[in-house]
């Protein structure tokens, strides 16, 4: 699979990474190289293989429906670059 600049731009947009125009081509080349390399997996027939989910079969652990956490809003916003009255503050969003 060869990745072109358009695909890099699209992935960068999805990943919210500002990529300068002059980096698109080198990144496309790098990504193409890596993807060409991983494509050797296509040599394997995995039609009847289940994807791996856990090392040993185990039951998903469940918590009880009890309130055991929260009520520390100051701690939640403590590291925020911008906060006000315990809200996180971000640039204006238009819906």
């Amino acid at each position, binding site marked *: 699979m060869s990745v072109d600049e358009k695909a890099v731009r699209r992935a960068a947009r*999805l990943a*919210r990474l500002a990529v300068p125009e002059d980096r698109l081509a080198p990144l496309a080349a790098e990504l193409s190289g890596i993807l060409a390399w991983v494509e050797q997996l296509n040599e394997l027939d995995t039609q009847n293989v289940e994807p791996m989910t856990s090392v040993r079969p185990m039951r998903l652990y469940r918590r009880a429906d009890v309130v055991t956490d929260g009520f520390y809003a100051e701690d939640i916003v403590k590291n925020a670059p911008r906060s006000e009255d315990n809200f*996180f503050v971000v640039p204006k969003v238009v819906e």
Partner: protein
Amino acid sequence: MSDLMKMTLAEAREGLRARRFSSAELAAASAAEIAKARPLNAFIVETPEIAAAMAAASDARLARGEGGALEGIPLGIKDLFCTKGIQTTAGSHILEGFKPVYESTVTQKLWDAGAVMMGKLNLDEFAMGSSNETSYFGPAVNPWRRGNDDAKLVPGGSSGGSAAAVAAELCFGATGTDTGGSIRQPAAVTCIAGIKPTYGRCSRWGIVAFASSLDQAGPMARTVKDCAILLREMAGFDPKDSTSVDLAVPDFEAACNAGVKGLRIGVPKEYRIDGVPAEIDALWEQGIAWLKEAGAEIVEVSLPHTKYALPAYYIVAPAEASSNLARYDGVKYGLRVENDDLTRMYEQTRAAGFGREVQRRILIGTYVLSAGYYDAYYLKAQKVRTLIAGDFKAAFEKCDALLTPASPSPAFGIGEKTNDPISMYLNDVYTVTVNLAGLPGIAVPAGISKDGLPLGLQLIGRAFDEETLFSAGSVLEKAAGFTGKPGRWWA
């Protein structure tokens, strides 16, 4: 240098219990060594004051005849573990200044056992790397050099700071994390021991996530036994981690003395890789001989899907990382590049906050998960994992553990491999299969390269059978009789 820091962790533990020295003395000696060793750039944050306070508390407990299994022992913590009130960066600019209000389960268990915190150790950014060169805080440096050549070498990665600190005797042990070899490969190239336990053995809660289905914490220390002592305290079921396993934690230390008599050690033929230096193969042969001499039976086994492990890894790990790293968006913590437009704020924050390798992996991960590609890449890779796990399962019907090299080369020079991602990725060729299958693997110092650099061997075990690794690892360690230490060029 104070001789105190030359001890193994086990020796320090005995000395503290016998009150031959205090924890305060150990912590002070450790802090002094750390300060002297700044050229190694092993620590991102040093915490001598916290260490002094913890050591004083340990001394008080020891004086009362109390104390946990690690009471008074100075340790370093990979900066991927969240530590309450202490900057936790994952080696990234994007988390610079972040002080968690919580403590990771693994580090909390260490403190509960009495260990003393010396600081936060350097690492590849978000643990993505095999040389510690992707750290925003600059590369950590291997204490080892090629003979008289003063070129700076990498300490391996991603737990490069942990490896450098332990190898340079700055602390008695360190935490590491291992997603594709990040404990074992640096351990091997710095002449220390390190174990990646079975996936689920240690809680991941509070460890900055790289690739959730592969990440596992483990100890790094100067001896196999020291690793065993540390792992016993780090491991255990955690109801806060749905992937942690509810199994009793065995006495790993006791397993170190069990020997290998009657054990069947498998040698996977697919691990003989073209282009790997002859000295790596020679060391492997030597390891086989040592285990044989100690009474193990050697059997040749086949792990036919080995060559697909790295490609599968370089789909799964970036895919999961691309999602795990989405939370670093300038809203809740860490770096924000201000902009009136929300999307630009996101894009500029993340472009400025993440380094090149991290961005590369986020892009790959985003690409392979995007519409139309999921089945071809991520699902395919997860299926290949099943095949790789199946290889091991079949092999373990014929043997009890596998012996392989730990790293395809000794430590290389800083900057030597940074231009070609795939050649860098190949450093994990021996280790990554273990992560994909979720199995435990230990790296043990075993020899010296022609340039005078350490080389390691790896043992791979059945799921949740770390004990066999400690038994066989101890035998290798003893047989190697390794006493060499790096010259203290930094002091």
